[in-house]
């Protein structure tokens, strides 16, 4: 029974990781850039939604819309302001600048919303019990929203011209360019799209747990582990990677103290980098 519960919890955590990892992997695919501020962008999305939930008493799904908009715009602004100018310099500078951006975003969240724990809805919602499994309404929201987003991502990548252009750039930037794909425009929409996914991931993390300014930063490592495990640049791999990392982190409590959950993600990431750096779905070689 405990195993079943851990599986369920693992899928819920894995869903959140998957959404975060899709964004990370798309940005890496299109820009060849490991975006370390991704977790803190999630945090921003979560807090913007919180504002609409508390001030205007909007339901969370409605509050998600302005949160998505703000996070997408913020992602584009960060790119235009910082990353765009550094793309031609050494990649390590770009990496460091995304670390700096992460710190800035976190500080901003603390200044605006304060350092304390917050939640979207107070009070206890009664969990469903099915076959010994404890299923909270919040966890169902996480699973449902993730399933919806994965379908949206699939439709976008498989059936729209912009989605195909993003995949093409992940595959072969030079060939995309000489085919006449407008590279700058694709980069712009990649930030918009990844920003939207990031906001949803942040909100779902807030729904599943609670909001603190370090929430996104704390989950960045397993998100990167998921993206790498799935194959960098492969959005479907990111979903797979997210679910596997989520499950592994939960199963680990059967063998070791739960404080080591993060270490499990880290170990998987290192093992993948050493043994199969292209990941499960044969992503970009790192």
């Amino acid at each position: 029974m405990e195993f079943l519960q851990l599986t369920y919890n693992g899928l819920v955590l894995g869903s959140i990781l998957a959404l975060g990892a899709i964004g990370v992997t798309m940005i890496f695919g299109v820009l060849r850039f490991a975006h370390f501020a991704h977790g803190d962008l999630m945090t921003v999305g979560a807090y913007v939604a919180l504002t609409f939930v508390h001030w205007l008493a909007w339901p969370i799904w409605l509050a998600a819309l302005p949160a998505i908009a703000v996070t997408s715009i913020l992602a584009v602004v960060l790119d235009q302001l910082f990353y765009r100018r550094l793309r031609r310099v050494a990649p390590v500078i770009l990496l460091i600048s995304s670390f700096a951006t992460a710190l800035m975003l976190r500080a901003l969240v603390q200044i605006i919303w304060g350092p304390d724990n917050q939640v979207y809805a107070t009070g206890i919602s009664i969990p469903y019990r099915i076959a010994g499994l404890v299923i909270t309404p919040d966890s169902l929201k996480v699973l449902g929203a993730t399933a919806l987003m994965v379908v949206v991502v699939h439709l976008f990548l498989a059936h729209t011209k912009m989605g195909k252009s993003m995949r093409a750039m992940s595959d072969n930037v030079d060939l995309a360019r000489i085919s006449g794909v407008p590279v700058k425009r694709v980069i712009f929409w990649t930030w918009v799209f990844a920003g939207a996914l990031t906001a949803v991931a942040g909100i779902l993390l807030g729904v599943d747990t609670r909001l603190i300014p370090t929430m996104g930063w704390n989950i960045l490592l397993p998100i990167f582990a998921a993206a790498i495990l799935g194959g960098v640049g492969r959005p479907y791999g990111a979903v797979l990677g997210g679910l596997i990392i989520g499950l592994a982190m939960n199963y680990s409590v059967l063998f070791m103290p739960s404080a080591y959950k993060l270490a499990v993600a880290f170990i998987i990431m290192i093992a993948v980098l050493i043994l199969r750096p292209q990941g499960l779905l044969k992503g970009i070689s790192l």
Partner: protein
Amino acid sequence: MSDNNQPVLDIRAVSGGYGDINILEDVDLKVHAGEVVVIVGPNGAGKSTLMKAAFGLVQVNAGEVLLSGEKITNISPDRLVHKGMSYVPQERNVFPTMSVQENLELGAYIRKDDARAQMDRIFDLFPKLKERRKQAAGLMSGGERQMVAMGRALMIEPTLLMLDEPTAGLAPAYVHQVFDWIRAINDQGVSILMVEQNAKQALRIANRGYVLATGRNRHEDTGERLLADPEIADMFLGGR
């Protein structure tokens, strides 16, 4: 196109390279409408570099490049595509995780009109691609990948198609086929500039050829005469 003698591609006294050092020195090359022109020469001669210079991928430091009389020196590739120029690089010339059909669709990215008719023509030329259109290009054989690469470049219905070593790494049986395709594409009115290691075979289907060595023009003549020249055969075509 009022002047019939105006070349489709006219490379005039071009010097250029990857940085400050010129790989190409004072190179001239012309492709007339309807021609197949082949560039041959030893490894490292600058054949690929010349093609990239024409396509805006390499800095031209002196001289000029004209496309049907219009100056295109150092214009970026994404703009040249709009002018009817297509280029198939020597390596990494397909989108490996994308299906055959998606590769062709990306080739048609800049088209505002319906590209399906052109895709059908490409499927007529390469029936195998139609069979395999849902398959990921990266999972195909070398020869099939070359079909995808050429098909992608043909989607804009180019006036000039540039091919860098289209037979590199292919089995001999396929090499022969590739030259047949190139002739078929040329028969449809597409002018072709290509670099080839299989120099003898390529010169046989070419109207004219250029021999390039250490970044300079060495010889220029019709395919037949280059093939017949014993000195060139000895030095550049691997003997007779």
